[in-house]
C-alpha cells in the first residue's frame, strides 16, 4: 500500500482533484472503499455542488456522515444550503447589533454577499475546516472536490487568509496603541451610540475585533498547517490520457507546489487497452500513448497509476473495491 495514503501522524487527509468528468468521484470512492477494507475508519465527503458520490456508491447521502459499509462513512455537503444558512445566521446576529446603524442598509449588503465572488470558496474552506477540526474521529478523510479551478483556489485560501489576518492585526495593533496613548493623557474614552455609552477598548484582550482576528488566524493556521503537512495531507490528481486534462493537471501541480500542498499521485483513468489493433481508433491510441509518455516525463517523483477503461461504468461496492485495490497498490 502506498504510504502517503495511510495515516501517519493522526488522521490522513486526501484531496482528489481533476478536471470535470475524468472520474474524480469514482476514484475517491474506490480509494475510500479500499482504505476502509484495509481497516481504516474512513470518511468520504463530496464537496462538489454537482453531487454524484451517492450515485457511484448507489446510496442516498446527506450532509451527515452515513455508514455505507464497515469502516466507511460518506456524506455530501450541500454548499448552497450552507451558504444560505450561514448568511441567514449572520444576518440575524448583525441585525441585533446594528439596530442603530440602519444607514448601511444591511439587507442590500446581504443580497450582494450571497452572490459575491469568492463566497463559495470561503464556504468550502469553512466546511473543510469544520471537518478537519473533528478529524480525530477518523483515520482517513477523503475529499471528493469540485473541478480543479475552484479546488485550487480553496487550497490557496488559507495562506492568503493568513496574510490578510496578519495585515489587519498589524493595523489593529496601531489603533489600540493610539487609543492607549490618548487614554493615558485624557482618561478613559467613551463612545456614544444612540444614547448608549460604550467604553472604547484599548487592550488587545478586551477588543472584540482583535479577539476575532486572532481566533480566525489560529483557525486558518490550523487548516494551513494540516494541508501543507506531507504526513497529513496528500493530493491525488485524476486525469484521462488526453491533452486538456494533462494541461490542467500540470497547472494544478505548479500551483500546489507554490502553496506547498503535497502532490503525490496521478491516477490515469479510462486508459484504453486493446488486445488486438483496431484501425478506427488507432489515432486515439497513439495520442493516448504520447500523453502517457509526457506525464511520465513531466511529473518526476509523482506516482502514476493506470486504470483501464472498463466495459461498464464502475459503480457499486464490488467495482469500487476492485478499482480501489489498483489505486492503493494492493497486489
Amino acid at each position, binding site marked *: 500500500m502506498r504510504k502517503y495514503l495511510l495515516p501517519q501522524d493522526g488522521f490522513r487527509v486526501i484531496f482528489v482533484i481533476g478536471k470535470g468528468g475524468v472520474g474524480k468521484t469514482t476514484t475517491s470512492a474506490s480509494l475510500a472503499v479500499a482504505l476502509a477494507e484495509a481497516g481504516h475508519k474512513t470518511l468520504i465527503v463530496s464537496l462538489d455542488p454537482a453531487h454524484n458520490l451517492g450515485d457511484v456508491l448507489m446510496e442516498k447521502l446527506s450532509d451527515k456522515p452515513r455508514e455505507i459499509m464497515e469502516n466507511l462513512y460518506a456524506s455530501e455537503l450541500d454548499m448552497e444550503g450552507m451558504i444560505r444558512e450561514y448568511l441567514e445566521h*449572520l444576518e440575524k*446576529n*448583525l441585525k441585533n*447589533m*446594528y439596530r*442603530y*446603524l440602519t*444607514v*448601511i442598509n444591511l439587507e442590500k449588503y446581504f443580497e*450582494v*454577499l450571497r452572490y*459575491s465572488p*469568492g*463566497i463559495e470558496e*470561503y464556504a468550502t*474552506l*469553512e466546511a473543510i475546516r469544520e471537518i478537519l477540526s473533528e478529524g480525530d474521529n477518523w483515520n482517513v478523510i477523503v475529499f471528493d472536490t469540485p473541478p480543479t479551478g475552484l479546488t485550487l483556489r480553496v487550497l490557496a*485560501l488559507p495562506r*492568503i*487568509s493568513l496574510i*490578510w*489576518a496578519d495585515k*489587519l492585526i498589524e*493595523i*489593529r495593533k*496601531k*489603533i489600540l496603541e*493610539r*487609543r492607549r*496613548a*490618548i487614554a493615558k*493623557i*485624557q482618561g478613559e474614552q467613551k*463612545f456614544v*451610540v444612540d444614547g448608549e455609552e*460604550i467604553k*472604547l477598548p484599548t487592550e488587545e484582550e478586551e*477588543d*472584540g*475585533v482583535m479577539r*476575532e*482576528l486572532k481566533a*480566525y488566524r489560529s483557525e486558518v493556521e490550523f487548516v494551513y498547517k494540516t494541508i501543507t503537512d506531507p504526513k497529513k495531507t496528500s493530493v491525488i490528481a485524476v486525469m484521462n490520457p488526453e491533452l486538456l486534462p494533462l494541461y490542467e493537471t500540470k497547472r494544478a501541480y505548479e500551483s500546489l507546489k507554490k502553496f506547498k500542498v503535497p502532490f503525490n499521485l496521478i491516477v490515469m483513468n479510462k486508459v484504453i487497452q486493446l488486445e488486438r489493433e483496431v484501425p478506427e481508433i488507432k489515432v486515439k491510441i497513439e495520442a493516448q500513448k504520447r500523453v502517457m509518455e509526457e506525464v511520465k516525463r513531466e511529473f518526476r517523483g509523482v506516482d502514476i497509476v493506470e486504470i483501464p477503461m472498463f466495459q461498464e461504468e464502475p459503480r457499486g461496492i464490488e467495482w469500487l473495491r476492485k478499482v480501489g485495490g489498483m489505486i492503493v497498490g494492493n497486489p
Partner: protein
Amino acid sequence: MEPIKNFLKGFFEYFKQSSTEYIEFELRELENVFALILMASFIGIPSPPTTLVLRLMPHMVKEIKVMQQRAIDLDDVFAEVAGMFDID
C-alpha cells in the same frame, strides 16, 4: 485663589487636548482605513476573506461611524488639513 485655579485647570485642559490632537487624528485615520478595508468590496477593491469580514462587523460600530463621518467630511478635506496645521 479661585480664578487662578480655574485658569490653571483650563490651561492644562487645553494642553491635554492639543497634545493628543495629532494622535487623535492619526487614530481616526487608522480606524477609517480599517473599516474601509473591510468594506472595500462595495467599491470593487479586493477585500479580506468574506468570513473574516462578517465576523468582524459586529465589533466595528465605532469604526464604521468614523468611516461614515469621514466620508461626509471629505467634501472639505483641505479645510480639515489646513485646520490641523493652523493655516488660515
